[in-house]
């Protein structure tokens, strides 16, 4: 990798840190432009990439942001549980809608599954596909929002796992409610069922992240 590429990579990594630190895009662009101009000045004065980019990227980004007066003390570099639940539920809902159209109303898929597998296996597979799409939507939404966060994959997987637990727990009350409502498909009943399942999933994510916090308190990350 040549000097220009190493410097460009350094700037990219610093900018990623600034994104994680929550700097607004306009401010971030200003800082990036200033840094690039300064690095270019330094390079034209004879500095090598080794001279310029050997700094610890995270410490450098934090120090520059702090020097520019950004309040960083309240940011511990991990998503707030409330924001995580919101993102997860929205992603999960989009995944559920996709599973409705791609799985539950997909008659070609029904036909294929019922032809290949015994009925019980086909039913289980169908539900597994639908749940996978829902949880996949959730994990994808979390990854998209927090993609510059350290250990984002672990955060997304754990959130989806807690959501699955919440979904399982919601089965009992959801079935009880459906029985009580005589399995009606009216919009108010569907809404009530959706709210019930969503609440169980949100509570499970919240409880899960409270029981096992995302990062150790003594290791805050930007």
């Amino acid at each position, binding site marked *: 990798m040549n000097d220009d590429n190493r410097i460009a990579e350094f700037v990219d990594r610093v900018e990623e840190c600034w994104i994680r630190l929550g700097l607004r895009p306009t401010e971030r662009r200003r800082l990036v432009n*200033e*840094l690039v*101009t*300064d690095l*270019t*000045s*330094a390079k*034209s*004065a004879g*500095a090598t990439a080794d*001279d*310029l980019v*050997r*700094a*610890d990227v995270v*410490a*450098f980004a934090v*120090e*520059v942001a*702090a*020097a*520019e*007066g950004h309040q960083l003390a309240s940011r511990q570099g991990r998503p707030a549980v409330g924001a995580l639940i919101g993102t997860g539920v929205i992603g999960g809902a989009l995944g559920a809608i996709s599973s409705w159209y791609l799985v539950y109303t997909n008659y070609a898929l029904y036909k294929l599954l019922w032809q290949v597998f015994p009925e019980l296996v086909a039913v289980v597979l169908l539900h597994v596909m639908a749940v996978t799409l829902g949880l996949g939507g959730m994990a994808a939404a979390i990854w998209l929002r927090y993609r510059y966060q350290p250990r984002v994959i672990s955060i997304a997987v754990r959130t989806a796992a807690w959501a699955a637990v919440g979904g399982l727990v919601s089965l009992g009350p959801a079935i009880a409610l459906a029985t009580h409502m005589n399995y009606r498909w009216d919009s108010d009943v569907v809404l009530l069922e959706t709210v019930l399942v969503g609440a169980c999933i949100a509570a499970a994510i919240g409880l899960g992240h409270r029981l096992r916090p995302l990062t150790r308190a003594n290791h805050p990350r930007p």
Partner: protein
Amino acid sequence: MTVIVDRESLLMRGTLDMCVLTLLSRHPLHAYGVVQHLQEHGFTQTSYGTVYPLVSRLRRQGLLAQDLQPGGSGPARNVLSLTDEGRLTLREWTKQWREVNERISQLIEERR
């Protein structure tokens, strides 16, 4: 030995802002130029990664000004210089440094 090096870097870090202002009071420089001058003066641990955030802070505090100057055939350069407030601050810091240095020196001499 590590303790000695750490202590030295700690002392230098504590006075780095004053040293940067001192260098820039003599002539305007870009951030990497500041690093080079500091290294020539024995601040061997000082790097661009230390100086850039520091000059950012000093600029925000109004002690340094930054101008983009045409670089001849090359790209334009960010050049740092002292503001009037920077000059006053440097005078004050230098005075403080001399006083503290004198007190510490006296203390060390008395122990002998």
